[in-house]
């Protein structure tokens, strides 16, 4: 046994825009244990529900995380709406689905860029983010915001998107597909890139199951699990199957996310083809009185929203279990036995979102 050293990683570290701290217990070049400490970014926003009305809290929920902001707003709204037995117009559900899938495309492109940056492939990072800007332009055209949209509200969505705009979105996505393919082929085929991901941080199906991996992290190890199959919003009308790989290494996780970009584009096409006409919101006349659990598939995996209404404008409790929180035990597992040089890549492959985790 070599000499043990502890190397601190973070909270300010170039590969991660967000603060997380890990104490890496090293034996020579190999990590034997990783001890996380979190709390740099905790704000305590679940408690804000006591002073913000339940209709206003949507804006707080959106700011749990700026990357999946739309899906946080959507999860909160769905949970409150189900608790109130409020049926929202079908068109609103479709629009939510379209925005949610666009968010997934933007999030995965963002992640691909960060991964490329993580292994030092700067131009690949730039190209991923260049493509991502096109999605942000769609967001800006349809909602007015680039990262925080505030377009979801209890009872539906705040604004309609005209059918012509929807068609132009499809056109943008179709034009983009070839470029995304060209970009992602580098991740899939390039020898040098593969040397950083293939066989790094392997997690078996059993381990993924036992440690409770969610989202692409679990699906890359063969765990068939996708909350969209529950058929919330308009997913019950759309035709898709969860994307699963079996290798369980960083390469498989990359491939799952890449295939999901194309899947999301396909889902948006389907949704635009099927979207019904009609209203986009219903008035809210009541206050929440019930408890409700809601599960959604975010780009990073399953998110659980719990809301408890007590018949006043203020909810008694909101609880969010975010995907990164569930993926930290699998991450610590993958870090054991890896080389120090692979630590940044491994941390990135769970697609960590610390501000979700700590709220």
């Amino acid at each position, binding site marked *: 046994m070599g000499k043990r050293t502890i190397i601190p990683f973070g909270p*300010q570290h170039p590969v991660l825009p*967000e603060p997380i701290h890990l104490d890496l217990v090293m034996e020579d070049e190999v990590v034997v244990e990783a001890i996380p400490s979190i709390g*740099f*970014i905790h704000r305590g926003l679940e408690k804000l529900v006591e002073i913000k009305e339940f209709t206003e809290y949507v804006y707080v929920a959106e700011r749990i995380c700026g990357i999946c902001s739309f899906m946080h707003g959507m999860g909160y709204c769905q949970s409150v709406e189900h608790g109130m037995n409020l049926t929202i117009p079908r068109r609103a559900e479709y629009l939510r689905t379209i925005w949610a899938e666009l968010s997934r495309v933007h999030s995965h492109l963002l992640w691909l860029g960060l991964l490329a940056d993580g292994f030092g492939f700067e131009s690949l990072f730039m190209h991923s*983010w260049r493509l991502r800007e096109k999605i942000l332009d769609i967001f800006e055209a349809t909602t007015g915001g680039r990262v925080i949209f505030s377009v979801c509200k209890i009872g539906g969505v705040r604004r309609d998107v005209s059918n012509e705009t929807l068609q132009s979105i499809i056109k943008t996505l179709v034009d983009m597909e070839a470029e995304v393919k060209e970009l992602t082929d580098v991740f899939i085929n390039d020898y040098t890139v593969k040397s950083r991901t293939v066989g790094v941080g392997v997690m078996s199906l059993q381990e993924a199951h036992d440690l409770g991996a969610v989202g692409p992290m679990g699906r890359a190890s063969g765990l068939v699990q996708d909350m969209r199959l529950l058929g919330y919003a308009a997913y019950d009308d759309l035709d898709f199957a969860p994307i699963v790989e079996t290798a369980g290494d960083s390469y498989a996780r990359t491939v799952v996310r890449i295939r999901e970009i194309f899947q999301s584009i396909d889902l948006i096409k389907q949704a635009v083809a099927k979207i019904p006409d009609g209203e986009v919101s219903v008035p809210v006349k009541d206050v929440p009185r019930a408890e409700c659990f809601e599960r959604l598939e975010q780009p990073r995996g399953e998110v659980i929203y719990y809301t408890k209404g007590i018949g006043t404008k203020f909810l008694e409790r909101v609880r969010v279990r975010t995907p990164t929180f569930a993926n930290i035990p699998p991450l610590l597992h993958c870090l054991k036995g890896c080389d120090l040089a692979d630590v940044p890549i491994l941390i990135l492959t769970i697609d960590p979102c610390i501000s979700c985790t700590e709220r």
Partner: protein
Amino acid sequence: MMSYVTKSPWIIHYDGSSCNGCDIEVLACLTPMYDVERFGIINTGNPKHADIFLLTGSVNEQNIPVIKQIYEQMPEPKVVVAIGICATSGGIFAECYNVQGGSDKVVPVDVYVPGCAARPEAIIDGVVKGLGVLAEKRAAMVKK
């Protein structure tokens, strides 16, 4: 603008307790659409290389020492730019129990960039304003 820039300022970015919204907009400034690198602005991870400190998010008990440490390690003259309403005043989270307020509670802030999320154009504008402040500070140092 180019005549204005006599130096390639390097930036360092630290995320206080932001929601990520402003962070990804800071990163977006570096990418081809906005590309601040054409002004010689480079994002560095090392405080000792940095001239401009971009802070997103509000401050709390646990990140105050980290922010202070980064600030102190930066060489003079230095400029702090607070990005987003969180870094300015705490914004929507101001009433949270673990939010102590804007970043000016901990380090002297030279430029405030409001917005939630702050748009890349606004961030670039803020950094350019910061360059002006940097030049002033340098001139003041030379005089001494």
